[in-house]
Structure formats: C-alpha cells, structure tokens
C-alpha cells in the first residue's frame, strides 16, 4: 500500500476540531489556562481585514453577478465559504425525507456570517418537559449556565435592553441602536396586538468593550464579517487573540476523518486529510475536543469505529446522530403603502433588525402546540443587490399610481423605472423562528455506500417535522397577517396552507441544527455528561451544538459559547485533579 498515514511525534495537551463558536471559545479559554493546543479547521485561514478576502463595503456592481447567490447561497458578499451544497462533500437523505446541511469551511466557520442574534436560553427552556411532558429536560438549568452567559456578554459584547421578561433573561447589555422607520411601524402594529416588540439582542459593538475591537460604524454588513471586528465572529474575537501567544498551533484545510483511540479506549488524537496534498496525517493529543458542528462532530464519532467501539466512538448509547433538530422557520413579506415615496437617508444601521419579538405566549395552553417562536423583521432602504426590481408586476398594480389611478401590473419605460423608485423601502418582511421538539427518529447516520472526495464516509439524514411544528408555523402566519393588517400593509404572495406544511421551512434551512450528541445524566440515553464530556471516553469532549437537549426558540450560538466556556473550565479542573 503506497498510501501512508503521516504521523507526527509531537503530543499536544489538547486537540480541538473546528474553529467556530465552540472551538473558538475552547481555544481561547484553554490556551489561556496554559495548555498546548492543536486547533484544526477544515477550511482556509480567514481574516475579514485581509483585503483579498474582505467583502465589506463592496458595491453590487463590483460583482459581475451583482451579488447573486450562485456560488454563495446568501450572495457573493456573504462570508461563508460553503453552503448547503459543497463540491465533493455530499450527504444523502433517506425515506424520502428532507434535511439540508449548511457548512462553512473557513476559520471561524459559520460565525463569520451569522445573524448575531444572541439570546440566552431561559429557565423554562432547560426544563420544557416539566411543563409539557414532551422531549427531555436538560441535566442542567439556567442557574448553571448564567455565570457563563454573563462572562460571554462581557467578553464578546451584546446589545439589548433589560426587560425583565421571565423566560428571556437579561444580560450585560450594551445600548441598542434606535429603531428604523419600518421598525417603528412594526412596534406600533405589535403593540396593537399585545406583542412585546423590544430591542433586539445582537452581538455587535454599539460601544467598545476593549481596545482591540472597533465600535460599529453602521454599515449593516455583519454577514460579511467586520474588518474592524465590531461584531462577533469566532475567528476575529476568540481565535485570533489566542494565536498571539505560543500555545496554539492552527492547522487549516485539515479535514478530520476520525478520533484515534488506544487499547484502553482513550482518545489519543485525530487523523485528518490535508486538503492541499490529499495525504492523511495524525495529530496526537491527551484530550480531544470536537467542535465541528453538531452534524460534523457526530459524523467524526460515527466514523471512529474500532473493535472496541463497533458503533462508533462514544456511542454505547446508540444516541450519536439521534435527536437532530433545527429551529422551525416561516416568513412573509408585505407592501406598506405609507412607506412608499420615502425620503432618502442612510438607514443601514447594524447588521440585522433593531427590534424583535420574543415568544409571548408561554402561559397559553390552547394553541395546539407547546413550544414557542420569536419573530424577526427586515426591511428598509437597503443596498440593492441581484433581485432588486424583480417582481414589480406583483406589486405595482396593488396601489394607485402618483396620478391616483390604479394601473395594470407590469409595464415598462419611465413609468416602470419610477415605480421601482417609489416602492424602494416600502417592503417589510417578518419571520418566525421556533422551537421544535427533538425526536429520536430525526437523525444523521453514516451512509454505507457513499464517501466524499476525501474518502470519508458521508452523513445520511432522516428528518420529519411533526404536527407540533406545523401548527406552530400556522400560528406564525396568522401572527404575520395580523401585524401586516395593523400596519395598513398588503401581504404579498399567498398564505401557505396545510398542503405546504403552512410554509414551514425544510429542516436545516434555519441553520440551527443541534442535538446529535446530547448531554444527560444517563449514559444509556445520552452521549455527553452535563459538562460536555463523553460518558464513554473521559478525555473526549464535544463543545458544539451537539450537546443540546433541546433548542429553545433562541439562536444557539450564545449557549454554545457559554457551555464551551463552562466545559473548558471543567476540563481544566479535571486535568489539574489528574482525573483526565
């Protein structure tokens, strides 16, 4: 056999796989604790201040496709190298079900482009089973995580307001930006229906938190990753500072295949494919931390088969890959006629919404579903990109023209040109992001027939929504229409019905997938203990969203960061006590 795995004799204290939120936090905390760390990232190095990589402040005409999403699903300027489909890295689905898996191959992973929505899980979110009997409780509660949320707030920065809403814990908030015009409309519309429309909570520096990072200059382009680090991305805020010291070796373009173990069943390191020379290498370490994303880490564990671990590593429970769940999502847009013919001014603001609606019906028992959703908004006079001016025939017949007469939708010429101008900034969008109930039968597993271009067996997904999620989406659409009505708006498109699952997005589309290596006190029904440590392998941790027992309707990043910090402190103590 000519193919030879190249081994290095160096033994690190800790090998961390993945440089997103979980891996970045582990790298920072553990390198500061003095450990020698190998950080492996499957994509290239990345710095938003590198002019060759930077997209911030680019104009649509600097891209020949005007920023369209042909190669990056959220558009040319979005800072995720990858997407739901990556050349040479397939995945499959079974039983006619659907799941779309978003991956970002770069230092910092998906934190470079994410929405920066930074919500703490509340007390209820860790113990939902106590209230509705569904799913499982977490083995920890809000009080266990709160100190780490506090530390994350102060280290990374998040704006928001103290609202004292029971299941929406307040944090150490920087002052929020003032609402935009359409957001004031939404606030008024929401108040009319009794919805709490409050300042959003985003990890964007409206104020400086240290001398390293700049304050937000309101370009709305957080999805492009900020060149002065005014928003949070793991690469800019956690990994980069850690690399300034000698404790961390960064391996980029290193696609991890499996975790290596010895005859005692302890992890000894990982093997990876170097994407440049397509050779396989090993990195030795006394502790291995997987933070390759919920599905990425599950894949590595399931591919780490040996005679001692025939079902994959840390999988005596058979639960690795199970309980996969994403947030629910549904959305609607509306034309708000009173926002037409607007005065022009710069209303870019921060990257994302300035106001949102947290779930407001925790006490409601008769909805037909038991888990909530929060609402997000968009709109305003944003920078044009591919798609601007599309579908005018769907809106310019809805309201009278400047002459007071209704017109035939469509058209051409100066009248059409002027219409695009009139409607600019008059479209408002809203979306629900909800909690689904984790199901053992929603899972990823290894496809026995397929490998990726690195020869690594790929994931196969099986995922079905239940009526809980469908009813929730139905409720979202009812809320959207009520808000649109309150604003004097005209809902665009049709309200999706039962035949289309009430507009419920395909699982994986909201990119909050978690749960594949869930934590628990019982090693027969969970993969990790409450400190993200594998029940079966004491020197193996998983610090991404895999450990989540349930997702809440909150975006997972802030909780991944808090739990990774907590787990890293625990690991430090365990090493000191010689337990690992």
């Amino acid at each position, binding site marked *: 056999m000519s193919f030879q795995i190249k081994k290095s004799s160096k033994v690190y204290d800790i090998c961390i796989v993945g440089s997103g939120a979980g891996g970045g936090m582990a790298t920072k905390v553990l390198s500061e604790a003095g450990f020698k760390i190998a950080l492996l990232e499957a994509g*290239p*190095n990345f710095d938003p*201040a*590198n002019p*060759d990589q930077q997209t911030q402040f*680019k104009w649509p*005409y600097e*891209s*020949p*496709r*005007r920023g*369209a999403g042909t190669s990056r699903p959220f558009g040319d300027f979005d800072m995720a*190298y990858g997407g739901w489909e990556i*050349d040479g890295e397939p995945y499959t689905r079974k039983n006619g079900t659907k799941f779309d898996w978003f991956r970002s191959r770069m230092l910092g992973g998906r934190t470079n482009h994410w929405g920066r929505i930074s919500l703490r899980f509340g007390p209820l979110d860790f113990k939902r089973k106590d209230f509705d009997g569904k799913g499982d409780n977490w083995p920890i509660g809000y009080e266990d995580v709160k100190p780490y949320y506090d530390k994350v707030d102060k280290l990374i920065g998040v704006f928001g307001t103290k609202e004292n809403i029971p299941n929406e814990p307040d944090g150490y908030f920087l*002052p*929020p*930006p*003032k*609402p935009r*015009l359409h957001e*004031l409309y939404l606030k008024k519309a929401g108040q009319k229906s009794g919805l709490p429309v409050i*300042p959003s909570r985003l990890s964007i520096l409206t104020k*400086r*938190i240290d001398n390293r990072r*700049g304050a937000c*200059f*309101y*370009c709305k*382009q957080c999805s492009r990753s900020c060149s*002065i680090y005014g928003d949070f991305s793991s690469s800019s805020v956690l990994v980069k500072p850690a*690399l*300034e010291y000698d404790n*961390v*070796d*960064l*391996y*980029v373009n290193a696609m991890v295949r499996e975790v290596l173990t010895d005859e005692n069943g302890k992890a000894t390191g990982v093997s990876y494919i*170097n994407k*440049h*020379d397509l050779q396989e290498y090993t990195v030795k370490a006394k502790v291995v931390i997987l933070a390759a994303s919920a599905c990425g880490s599950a894949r590595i564990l399931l591919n780490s088969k040996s005679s001692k671990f025939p079902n994959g590593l840390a999988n005596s429970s058979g639960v690795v890959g199970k309980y996969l769940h994403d947030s629910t999502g549904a959305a609607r847009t509306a034309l708000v006629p009173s926002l037409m013919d607007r*005065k*022009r001014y*710069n209303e*870019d603001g921060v990257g994302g919404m300035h106001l949102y609606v947290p779930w407001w019906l925790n006490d409601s028992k008769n909805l037909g579903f038991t888990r909530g959703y929060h609402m997000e908004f968009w709109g305003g006079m*944003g*920078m*044009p990109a591919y798609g601007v001016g*599309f*579908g*005018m*025939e769907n809106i310019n017949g809805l309201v009278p023209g400047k002459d007071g007469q209704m017109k*035939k*939708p*469509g058209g*051409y*010429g*100066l009248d*059409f*040109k002027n219409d695009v*101008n009139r409607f600019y900034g008059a479209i408002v969008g809203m979306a629900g992001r909800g909690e689904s109930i984790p199901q053992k039968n929603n899972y990823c597993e290894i496809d026995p027939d397929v490998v990726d271009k690195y020869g690594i067996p790929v994931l196969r997904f099986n995922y079905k929504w239940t009526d809980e999620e469908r009813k929730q989406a139905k409720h979202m659409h009812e809320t959207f229409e009520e808000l649109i009505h309150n604003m004097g708006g005209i809902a665009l498109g049709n309200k999706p019905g039962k035949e289309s699952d009430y507009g419920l997005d395909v699982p994986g589309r909201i990119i909050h997938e978690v749960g594949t290596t869930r934590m628990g006190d019982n090693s027969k029904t969970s993969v990790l203990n409450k400190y993200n440590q594998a029940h079966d392998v004491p020197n193996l941790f998983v610090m991404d969203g895999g450990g989540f027992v349930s997702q809440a309707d909150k975006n997972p990043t802030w909780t991944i960061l808090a739990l990774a910090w907590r787990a890293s402190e625990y690991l430090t103590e365990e090493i000191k006590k010689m337990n690992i």
Partner: protein
Amino acid sequence: MDRRKSLKAMVAGTVTSGFMFSGCLTDSEEQVANETPTPEIEESGYGRTPEELARDKELYSKTFFNEHEMATLAVLSDIIIPADETSGSATDAKVPEFLEFIVKDMPHHQTPMRGGLMWLDHESNKRFDKVFKDTPETQQLEIIEDIAYPDDVKPEFLQGAKFFSRLRNLVATGYFTSKEGIEYLGYVGNVPNVWDGVPQDVLDRHKLSYDEKTLNECIKPEERNEIANWDNYDLA
C-alpha cells in the same frame, strides 16, 4: 485624517503579526498574500476564493449571446429602462453586458432568454416583416404593449409575456445594481457612519416618535467610543 484612513489605522493596530502553521501543513493562500499582488488578485477584487475566481474566469472566457441577440437586448433594455433628464438608460449602465454574464452564471435563464428573443423576432416578422430590432419604435412598442402586462395578455401572447417579465426582472436588477441605478434609487449607505435614528422630519411625516424609554436606553453617538464599564450595572 479622513474616516477611511482612521479605519485602516484602527485595523493595523489590531491585526496580529501572523498565524503559525506547524508540521507539514502550509497555507498557500497566506503565502500568496505575502507576495506582490499579481493581476489575478487585483482582478478578483471582491473577496473571491481561488475556486470562485477560477469560475468567474471560465464564465468570462465564454460567449453566450450572438451579436444579433446582444443588439436586440440593447433595444429591449432601453425600452424597459430609458434615460430621463437626470438619469441614464439601461444601456448607459451596461445592462446588456450584465445580461450576457448572468445567463452564463445562471444557465436556467439561457433557454428562456434565447427562445424569448426568437419568439419576439418571429412575432415581429409576422406582423411587420422585419426582425424586432429593425422595426420602427412605434411598431416595437405595439408588440411590447401586448406582452408587458401579465394580468392582461391574450392567450396567443402568453409565452411572450413570460419572457418579457423575466427580461424586465433582469434588466431592472442590472440597472438598479449599477452605479447609475443606485444613484437614481437614492441609496446613500455603504459607508462608515453613525446611526442616530430616523430624521425628525421623517418621524413627523409618519406621525411617529421615539418614546422616552427608547431615547434613554439607546446608544448616544458621543458614547460609542467609550469602553463599556459594568461597575454600576445591576443585573438580577
């Protein structure tokens, strides 16, 4: 010191000296970045990965529309977006060149666009015994009137109307994402600035205001460069 320069200085002050790479692994991108920029890198211009850059080059090396099609698209583009006293037309904004690129980038546009142009020439030949681009404007507009309003189309023109809606979308997008189009639209962002809420006259016009709570809680522009201090922050 202008804003751009101060941004650069800020960045220079915070960027680390470089990353460490161990063992056999090298990062070729990093090495390229340290050398004198080659024309390729300047060409990339908008933050492309090497794979994306290669794809762009491949698309640029191909031609889809022939000369006749390009000439017809130019006529159509200016019918959809003509110039007025203050702003240019679609061809002024190089929309046909955008159309040529976008159909190569998104091949699903190719057959409908090519076929739509053929449909149009066929219709023009039938009515006026000339291809579309060579008929006088009044005759061109006679056909366009029949296909420009999708809710009001005779059955025999439905395919033409479908084509025209697609073309109108692409021409509009090409125009309003161009420098000229953005200026016409009045988008004034994409620059470092300080957001301090909706201008008062706009609030007045929409009969809206910021309530006391909002004004107290929101960031004051003059405080944004202060470093946050949690000493007196009370969190239950």
